[in-house]
């Protein structure tokens, strides 16, 4: 058999943004799937999204409800979602309640009723919600249950229906469960309360016929239904660091470019570390401004102040971000909900990149970013940051991140996150006390793949922005913050 003769499995859109990427392109047509998880985690909503995304008058969906959430209440709540298309009711999507059938006629009756409806309607999609109630009915009759599931799977596959069986299952039930054995796809939704935040994640435990993205993916439920955030944001196929650009980008401060051997290599991740008021955000603004002047769109992700304030502050230094925002060349994204996941943040940034064609990204700041995350995600912050930086720089995006440092007068810290290994280049800004004045110094700590100046130079923040001064030659121990004059002890 040649590859051309292999059966082609169509992939159906799930109707859940982000989920198709996780599934490897969509849900296999005619697949027999289990949608499992605890109550309230979004199973029914996900099924409805799939139903409304795919049901047509020619290939309608039948949504069987069994014991569980009353059908009228389910419809009452589900129609609040924007995907719920009332015009599809009855002609494309039919709801049928089987509670009475289950109570009076058991599994045999359920199978007969589903068979009757499927043969009469020829549906493209069948959902049984909640299937768990059907299973419970037969808990004591394992063989009967196995036969039922087997027959149901055969029936629906033969009738070319893509099927979702929805149920509340505990993770411990995965093993030795005939339902899970028969299923082509096994989708598990989780939700957990982490301190005051709810964290929702999904996992594709099984998907026959195509590769899905392994691991736990966060998802959110909004007025539009579920939105999933792939751990790779669907970027896997685009990521290749084999070919790196040789282009060097200006930071926006010519003297600093010179210190960095011409600027930042395109696709690098630059970290600017310094304590409050040292000018990290200003330097980041210069970086974006320099790109805009060359026609390179940019994105600024802010967590600690509103976009309007950010733009306004830039203008006070003579840096015009407003025009670029109005022209669509710059997006200032404000991400401050306190239960974000890194993947959601990445999605927002990635969407902005797609919209603007941005080549430069500022994350201001990592501390604010971490604070915006749900507590449950903070534990994974370092690993998530790695994924994010790796994915974006591989796309050729140059990232400038700021990180706030507590000033130490005994050592020079670069980051509280132990993430310096994630960055290609590091700039350190810090205060020093000199002759009764609090002054600022800058140094290039690291530049991957190139030489950089070893100078420690003073700088000032003026109405013209970041102005780099001279090397402070007459002091020793500048990095301690309290430098004595050279030659004195």
């Amino acid at each position, binding site marked *: 058999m040649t590859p051309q003769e292999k059966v082609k499995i169509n992939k159906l859109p799930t109707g859940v943004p982000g989920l198709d990427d996780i599934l490897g392109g969509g849900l296999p047509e005619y697949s027999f799937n289990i949608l499992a998880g605890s109550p309230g985690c979004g199973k029914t909503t996900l099924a409805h999204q799939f139903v409304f995304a795919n049901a047509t008058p020619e290939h309608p969906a039948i949504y069987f409800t069994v014991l569980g959430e*009353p059908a*009228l209440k389910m419809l*009452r709540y589900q*129609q609040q979602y924007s995907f719920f298309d*009332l015009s599809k009711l*009855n002609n494309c999507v039919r*709801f049928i*309640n089987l*509670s*009475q059938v289950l109570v009076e006629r058991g599994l045999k009756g359920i199978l007969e009723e589903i068979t009757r409806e499927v043969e009469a309607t020829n549906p493209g999609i069948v959902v049984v919600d909640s299937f768990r109630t059907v299973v419970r009915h037969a808990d004591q009759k394992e063989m009967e249950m196995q036969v039922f599931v087997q027959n149901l799977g055969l029936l629906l596959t033969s009738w070319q229906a893509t099927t979702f069986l929805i149920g509340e299952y505990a993770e411990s039930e995965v093993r030795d469960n005939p339902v899970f054995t028969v299923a082509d796809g096994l989708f598990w939704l989780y939700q957990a309360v982490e301190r005051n935040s709810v964290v929702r994640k999904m996992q594709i435990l099984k998907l026959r016929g195509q590769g899905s993205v392994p691991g736990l993916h966060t998802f959110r439920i909004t007025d539009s239904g579920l939105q999933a955030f792939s751990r790779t944001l669907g970027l896997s196929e685009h990521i290749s660091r084999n070919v790196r650009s040789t282009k060097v980008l200006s930071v926006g401060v010519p003297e600093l470019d010179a210190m960095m051997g011409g600027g930042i290599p395109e696709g690098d991740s630059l970290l600017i570390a310094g304590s409050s008021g040292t000018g990290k955000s200003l330097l980041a603004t210069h970086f974006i401004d320099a790109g805009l002047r060359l026609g390179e769109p940019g994105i600024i992700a802010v967590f600690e102040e509103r976009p309007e304030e950010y733009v306004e502050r830039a203008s006070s230094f003579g840096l015009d971000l407003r025009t670029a925002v109005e022209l669509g060349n710059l997006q200032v994204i404000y991400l401050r909900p306190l239960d974000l996941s890194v993947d959601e943040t990445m999605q927002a940034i990635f969407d902005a990149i797609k919209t603007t064609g941005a080549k430069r990204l500022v994350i201001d700041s990592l501390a604010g970013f971490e604070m915006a995350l749900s507590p449950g995600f903070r534990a994974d912050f370092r690993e998530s940051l790695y994924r994010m930086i790796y994915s974006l720089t591989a796309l050729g995006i140059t990232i400038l991140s700021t990180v706030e440092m507590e000033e130490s007068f005994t050592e020079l810290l670069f980051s509280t996150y132990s993430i310096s290994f994630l960055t290609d280049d590091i700039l350190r800004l810090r205060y020093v006390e000199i002759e009764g004045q609090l002054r600022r110094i800058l140094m290039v700590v690291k530049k991957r793949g190139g030489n950089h100046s070893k100078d420690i130079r003073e700088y000032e923040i003026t109405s013209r922005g970041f102005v780099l001064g001279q090397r402070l030659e007459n002091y020793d121990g500048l990095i301690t913050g309290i430098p004595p004059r050279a030659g004195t002890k």
Partner: protein
Amino acid sequence: MGQPIPSPEIRELAKRLVAHESARPHPSNGEAQTVSGLPDRLSLPNLSVAEKLRRPLSTLAGVSGFRALVSRALTLAKAQRPELSIVQVKPDGSLDIISATPGRPPNGTGDRTSGDRTAGDSEAVEVLVTELLWLLVALIGEPFVVILLRDEWPDFAVPETESRSESVQ
């Protein structure tokens, strides 16, 4: 907070629907109709509106779901029209008429002529249908109810969905 009451539009819709059903020829008998196979002792006309809604709503919400709905509607309607006390909901959700004790007509129907009773019964059924429709609108929304009605009465002009403000007592 007051109990929401059916809007005038829903009342009008129910009235038209009952009239529409009354005008239809019924196979069992003339004016008085049989519900769920009951003999023609049934004097309340047009319970067939509720009966016709039973099929799609039992499919949608289950037999017990529909039974709960129609029981609630009947309770609300009985509070307004005591003559409906002769109506009861059967386990399958269909409506039944309790036989009156000979010589002692059901409450609210004793002193009236046959003509009065027919008119009064018709209005009582309108109240019942109004409450049932209003309950459905409150639970699943007007657009969905309109779809259901259009499916069951393709020859009946169900008004386009439009926002109908709730009245509050």
